[in-house]
């Protein structure tokens, strides 16, 4: 272990790390102000309100902020329900595929189809069948986020080194023991990597779903569409910031979960 570094050196090194991104932020804000106040005519400033306007109207106005926060809550509910269902369905089908080759050859192509069919093409059908509210939004989330869970789980279960299988064969382990004590733990890092990708996708799915399924309390996606329609650019920014934050938070949380689960023995990125 290195000696604890003096406070000054620590401060300097954190300045080196924090400095460049902060500089970039300042440049961006500068350009933003320039465009908004200098380039745009006053009557076209609604296209890009200055940063302080955005802060004042979008974040410091309680009514506006609460509307976005409520939307955020609904989007979280939709995306996490969708993710949960995708995890259960995706892992179950991957486990079944790993157990019998014929299941894999029969069903895997359709998993690929789910992945490749444009979501917009499925939307009308989902709406017809399940209505234009919460359920349909969740279904869109599931469709968007299930594929990485299936492929990653399947890959993890099937990528056990042959010599490990030999060990279990030598000691006459049955199929179930093999799955629980060998294939499943071996798959965990890949499974968590899949969760992480899918979690991000499920947020996107929830927001996209709300563009089409407008019944019920509006989520972030619905609000984004609404603010765009009414040219409420400041609030549009607020909704945008919160949807990005949600995506980042979810990505980070699943990374943390992965490190907690397999970090002791596996290098997670």
């Amino acid at each position, binding site marked *: 272990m290195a000696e604890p570094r003096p406070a000054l050196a620590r401060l300097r090194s954190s300045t080196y790390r924090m400095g460049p991104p902060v500089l970039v932020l300042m440049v961006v804000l500068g350009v933003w102000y320039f465009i908004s106040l200098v380039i745009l005519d006053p009557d076209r400033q609604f296209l890009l309100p200055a940063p302080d306007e955005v802060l004042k109207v979008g974040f410091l106005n309680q009514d506006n902020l609460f509307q976005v926060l409520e939307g955020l809550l609904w989007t979280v509910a939709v995306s996490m329900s969708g993710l949960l269902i995708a995890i259960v369905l995706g892992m179950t089908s991957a486990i079944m595929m790993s157990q019998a080759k014929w299941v894999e050859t029969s069903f895997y192509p359709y998993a690929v189809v789910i992945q490749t069919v444009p979501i917009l093409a499925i939307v009308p059908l989902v709406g017809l069948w399940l209505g234009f509210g919460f359920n349909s939004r969740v279904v869109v989330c599931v469709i968007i986020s299930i594929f990485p869970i299936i492929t990653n789980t399947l890959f993890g279960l099937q990528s056990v*080194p042959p010599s*490990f299988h*030999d060990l279990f064969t030598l000691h006459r382990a049955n199929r179930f023991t093999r799955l629980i*004590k060998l294939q499943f733990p071996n798959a*965990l890092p890949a499974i968590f990597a899949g969760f992480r990708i899918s979690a991000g996708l499920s947020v996107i799915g929830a927001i996209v779903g709300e563009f089409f399924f407008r019944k019920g309390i509006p989520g972030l996606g619905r609000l984004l569409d609404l603010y765009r329609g009414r040219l409420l650019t400041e609030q549009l920014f607020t909704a945008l910031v919160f949807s990005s934050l949600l995506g980042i938070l979810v990505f980070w949380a699943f990374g943390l979960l992965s490190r907690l689960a*397999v970090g*002791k*023995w596996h290098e997670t990125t």
Partner: protein
Amino acid sequence: MSKTFPDGTHAVDKVSFSVEPGQFVTVVGPSGCGKSTLLRMGSDLLPVTSGEVRKAEGTLGYVFQDATLLPWRTVQKNVELFCELRGLERKERRRRAEDAIELVGLGGFDQHYPASLSGGMKMRVSLARSLTLDPPLFFFDEPFGALDEITREYLNAELLRIFTHAGFGAVFITHNLYEAVFLSTDVLVMSSRPGRILNSFQVPFPYPRHLDLRFDPTFAELTGEVSEVLRDE
């Protein structure tokens, strides 16, 4: 027994030998001569094409080329694995694992994960794992092949210590002649593919053997003879 693979490769040709507890048989031969295939057939991992394998009661110890430790299990949990697969209860598993870890000299490392161990330590864990079932017969498939010379010598001595302590019978595969003669009661020399037994040697030195044995003239002579058989092939 013989082995021909579906693709027509004739790997092992009419090889026949037997091992008793207390006997340490080493098989040396050029790479690709079917040495590993021999062990895989002997352990039912691979069906024999013709011939048969007769085994006494009891489990088989098998140490592979690489340590094959499950990375998600600690040393202790890895050593317990075979007992677990054989359905032993937790207390018994733990007791046997502790004894085996102690025997291979890894006491204090039981909560480490394999990733934090050196190659030599991993091989010891692998050995300990098989020792928990107290097998009458052990297969070693070039277990020290990937280790440096110093570690290999040290583990050779350690292995003999454990061998004399536990009294199992062993079939040991290697392409290192010194290792072969140092460890064994019997050395079998195999030809290149299809593998046949060219010659066998009895090693006259009693156990326990000391590493200095390698510098004994009789040792050198014997190794020389084995080497000659291999070269003439």
